[in-house]
C-alpha cells in the first residue's frame, strides 16, 4: 500500500504524564484521513510533533513518502518535508491584501531585491484557478467573508506543498487541517471540502482534525480515533455510524439517552431568568435558574456556549434579550459591566491575567477592588483595608496570604482564589464563571469547586461555562449542551457524568444554520 505518512510508536511525555502512548497510524496516498477525540486525547500533541513544535520521546518513527524523517522534526522545515498546516486561527493578516497574504512566506524569505507584484499576482491567480477559487488578489483579507478566508489559507497551504516533490518527481505531501471549519456555516463548508477533494486529486493527502463527527464522516475516507493518548481504532468512514464513533471516543457504550428534558423553552420560573439572548454566535437562547443552583453550559468548540457569561454581563455586546434577577428585568443590549454589577452579577473570566486581575498590582488592590467603596472612598483607612484584604486571603486559602505581593507572583490556582475572593466578597446574586479551573493545579481545583458549591449553598445562582466535562460533572446541578449557538439538550441528575456530557456534546454537534452570518473569531 502506498502511504504518504506513517507514524510508528510515537510517545510523548509531559512531566510524567503520557500525552501520547505508542501511537501508530498511517495515511494513504490520496486519502482524506480524519483524526477525532476528546479534548486532551492527544490530537494536538500529535500535530505539534509533526509541526516540530514538540520533541517526542525517543523510539517513535515518522516516515513521509517512504523517507524516514529524523525526529524531532526541524521547525520551519515542514514544507520541505512535504507537510503543510492550516490551523483554526488560519494565520492570515487581515489588514493585508490577498496576494500579500498568499505569498507572504515566499516573499519574506526569498532574497530578492525587488518584488514584482504583477508576477506574484499572476502566480496567485493561477493557484486559485487550479483549486477553483475566485478571489480578487487585490482585496483586503479583512473584507472577505469567513469562508473565503479559510479557503485562502487552505489554498496557500496547498501551494506551499506544490513546490514539494517526492523522490520519483510525482506530487505528494500531507495537508493538515486543524479544525479550520469550526466557525463556518454549513453551506460554506461544502465549498471548502470541494477544495480539499481537488487537492487530493492532485496527489496530496489530507489529515483532517475535527470535533464535528458528521462532517468528519462526510469528508474523510478513514478516521482514526484517539483516546487518552492511544489509538482507539481506525475505521472506514463509509461503513461507520456516528454513535459508533462516539462510543470509541468515550471508550464505552452508554445506555440510550432519554431526551426527556427538552430545554426549558420559555424562561418563566426561577430566581434568574434569561430570555432570548442573541449576540455573537448565540441565537435566541433562554434558560432559568434557581437560587443555589449551579448550571453548567457546555458544547464543542464553536458551539457558542462560552459566550453566554460575557453576553449576560455586558462584556460582549448582545444584540438582544433580557435577563431577570429577583424580579428586576434588564435589557441585555444596553447591559454594561457596571450595570451588571449593580444588577447583582459577577463575572469570572477565563483570561485570568488579562481580564480578571492586574498582574503588576498587589494582591490587596486586586482582591479589594469590588468592595473599596465600603472603606470611606475619600479617606481609605489603610490599616483596616489591609486587614480586610488579609482576612479575605485567609478565608479563601490563598497561599501565601500576603496582601502586598504582586498578583502575578501567585500560582494560577491562587490567582483564581483571589479572583473568587474579590467577587464573592461583594456578595453577588448571580456568579458567572468561564473555565474556572483552567491552568489551576489539582489541589486548588478542588478548592475552587468547593468555593463555588459553597457559594451556591448560600443561595447564589451559578452559571459555569466550561469544556471540562469532569468539572461540570463535579459541580453542576444541571448541564445545558450547546451546538450552533443553541441549547440542544439538558442533562440532570444521574445523566451528569463526564461520559454522558461528552456523548451529548458529540451527538448534538450540529452545524450552524446556512443562512447565519457569523463573526470571525480573531
Amino acid at each position, binding site marked *: 500500500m502506498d502511504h504518504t505518512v506513517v507514524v510508528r510508536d510515537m510517545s510523548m511525555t509531559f512531566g510524567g504524564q503520557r500525552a501520547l502512548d505508542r501511537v501508530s497510524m498511517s495515511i494513504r496516498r490520496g486519502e482524506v484521513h480524519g483524526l477525532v477525540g476528546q479534548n486532551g486525547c492527544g490530537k494536538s500533541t500529535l500535530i505539534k510533533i509533526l509541526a516540530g513544535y514538540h520533541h517526542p520521546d525517543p523510539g517513535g518513527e515518522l516516515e513521509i513518502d517512504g523517507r524516514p524523517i529524523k525526529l524531532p522534526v526541524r521547525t520551519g522545515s515542514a514544507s520541505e518535508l512535504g507537510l503543510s498546516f492550516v490551523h483554526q486561527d488560519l494565520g492570515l493578516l487581515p489588514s493585508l491584501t490577498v496576494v500579500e497574504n498568499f505569498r507572504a512566506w515566499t516573499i519574506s524569505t526569498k532574497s530578492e531585491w525587488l518584488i514584482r507584484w504583477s508576477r506574484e499576482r499572476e502566480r496567485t491567480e493561477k493557484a486559485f484557478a487550479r483549486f477553483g477559487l475566485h478571489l480578487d488578489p487585490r482585496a483586503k483579507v479583512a473584507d472577505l467573508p469567513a469562508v473565503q478566508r479559510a479557503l485562502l489559507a487552505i489554498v496557500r497551504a496547498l501551494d506551499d506543498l506544490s513546490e514539494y516533490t517526492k523522490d520519483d518527481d510525482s506530487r505528494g505531501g500531507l495537508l493538515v487541517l486543524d479544525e479550520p471549519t469550526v466557525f463556518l456555516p454549513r453551506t460554506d463548508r461544502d465549498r471548502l471540502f470541494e477544495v480539499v477533494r481537488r487537492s487530493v486529486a492532485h496527489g496530496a493527502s489530507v489529515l483532517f482534525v475535527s470535533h464535528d463527527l458528521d462532517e468528519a464522516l462526510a469528508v474523510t475516507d478513514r478516521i482514526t480515533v484517539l483516546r487518552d493518548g492511544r489509538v482507539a481504532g481506525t475505521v472506514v468512514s463509509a461503513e461507520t455510524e456516528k454513535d459508533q464513533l462516539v462510543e470509541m471516543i468515550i471508550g464505552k457504550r452508554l445506555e440510550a439517552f432519554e431526551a426527556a428534558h427538552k430545554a426549558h423553552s420559555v424562561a418563566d420560573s426561577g430566581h434568574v431568568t434569561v430570555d432570548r439572548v442573541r449576540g455573537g454566535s448565540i441565537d435566541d437562547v433562554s434558560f432559568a435558574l434557581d437560587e443555589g443552583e449551579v448550571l453548567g453550559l457546555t458544547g464543542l468548540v464553536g458551539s457558542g456556549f462560552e459566550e453566554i457569561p460575557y453576553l449576560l*454581563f455586558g*462584556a460582549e455586546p448582545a444584540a438582544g434579550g433580557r435577563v431577570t434577577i429577583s424580579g428586576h428585568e434588564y435589557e441585555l443590549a444596553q447591559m454594561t*459591566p*457596571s450595570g*451588571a*454589577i*449593580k444588577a447583582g452579577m459577577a*463575572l469570572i*473570566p477565563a483570561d485570568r491575567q*488579562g*481580564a*480578571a*486581575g*492586574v*498582574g*503588576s*498590582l498587589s494582591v490587596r*488592590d486586586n482582591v*479589594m*477592588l*469590588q468592595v*473599596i*467603596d465600603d*472603606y470611606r*472612598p*475619600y*479617606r*481609605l483607612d*489603610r490599616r483596616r483595608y489591609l486587614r480586610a484584604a488579609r482576612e479575605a486571603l*485567609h478565608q479563601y*486559602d490563598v*497561599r*501565601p*496570604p*500576603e496582601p502586598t505581593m*504582586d498578583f*502575578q*507572583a501567585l500560582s494560577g490556582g491562587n490567582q483564581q482564589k483571589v479572583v473568587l475572593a474579590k467577587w464573592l466578597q461583594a456578595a453577588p446574586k448571580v456568579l458567572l464563571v468561564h473555565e474556572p479551573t483552567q491552568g489551576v493545579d*489539582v*489541589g486548588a*481545583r*478542588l*478548592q475552587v*469547586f*468547593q*468555593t463555588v458549591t459553597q457559594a451556591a449553598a448560600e443561595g447564589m445562582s451559578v452559571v459555569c461555562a466550561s469544556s471540562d466535562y*469532569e468539572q461540570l460533572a*463535579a459541580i453542576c446541578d444541571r448541564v445545558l449542551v450547546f451546538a450552533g449557538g443553541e441549547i440542544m439538550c439538558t442533562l440532570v441528575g444521574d445523566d451528569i457524568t463526564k461520559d454522558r456530557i461528552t456523548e451529548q456534546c458529540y451527538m448534538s454537534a450540529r452545524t450552524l444554520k446556512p443562512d447565519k452570518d457569523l463573526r470571525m473569531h480573531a
Partner: protein
Amino acid sequence: MNQSSPGAPGELLPPSAGEPQRQRKGFALGDYVERLALVIAWLVVIVVFSVLAPDTFFNVRNFTTMFGTQTTLVILALALLIPLTAGDYDISVAATLTFSGMVVAVLNAQHGVPIGVAIAVAIAAGALIGFINGFFIIYFEIDAFIVTLGTGTIILGLTLWISASQTISGVSDWLSSWVVVHRIFGISYEFYYGLLLCVLLWYVFDYTAIGRRILFVGRGTNVARLSGIRVGRVRWGCFIAAGVIAAAAGVLYTGTAGASDPTSGQTFLLPAFAAAFLGSTAITPGRFNPWGTFIAVYFLVTGITGLAILGVQTWVQNVFYGGALVVALSASQIVKKRRERAARL
C-alpha cells in the same frame, strides 16, 4: 485527581499562615535601597558638586534659588502624572501651560481684566483643553499620543495668535508677589504650592478609591472594565485634571516673570516627562508617583545647576534631560522585567 475525598479547605491550610511576612524581611533592605536610590543619587550629586565648587554651589542662596525656581516644572510633571497613571500620554500639557500663561498676560496686561478673573479664565481654558482631548481620545477612540500631539500644536498656534507672537509684560504685581516675591524660610511661595499639590496627589492616589481605580485603568483596562469601572470616564477625567493643573503651572510661570512669552513654555515638555519617568523608579518603584516625581525634578535641577556653575555651556541641559529620560525608561523597564521574572519563579 481524587474526587472521593474532597476534604475541607481547612485541611489544606499551612500550619502557620503568618510565615511569609517574616520571610520577606530578608528582602526589605534591597527594597529600601531601590525606593531611595534616587534620593541617594541626588545626595551624591550634591556632595560631588559641593566638593568641586565649594563656594558657588554649596551655599544657602544657591539652594533657595534651586528650590524656589522649579515649581513650574514640578507642577507640570505632576499634571502629566495623572494621565500617565491612567495609561495615557498627554503631550499637550506644555502647550496648555504656555497658553494659560499667555491668557493671563493678555487679559490682565492688555485688556485690564482683574488678575483674579484672568486666572480663573486661564484655569477654565485648561479644563476645556482637557475636555477636548478626552473627547477625541475616548469618544472617537483615537490614540492619546496622536490626539495630544495635534491639540498641543493647535494650542501653540492659538497662543501665537492671541499674543501676536509678542512677549507680553506688565502683568499685575499681585501675581508676582504671591509667586516669587514672598518667601518662607528664604524660599519663594511657589515652592510650597508645588509641595501642596504633591501632597494632594499623593493623598488622592494612595488614600482614595478613585486613586485605586485610576491605577487599575492604567494597568489593566480590560480588568477595570470588567470590574465595573467606567474606564472612559476615568480617563476623560484624568485629561481634564491634567489640563487644569497644567494651566495652573502656566499661571505660576507668568507670575514668575511678570510677563509671558509665546514659546518658552514648550521647553518644559521633555523635562516633565523625564521627571515623571525618573520618578517612577523611586519611592514606589514601578509606579508613577508624586514624591518620586518631586524628587526627580530637584535631582535633575541640581545636576544642571551644578554643571552650569562649573562653567559647562547651556547645551548640556538638553543632553542631561534627554539622557535622564532614556536612563529612567531603561531603569523602569528593568524594574518591571525583574518583577515579572520574580513572579514566574
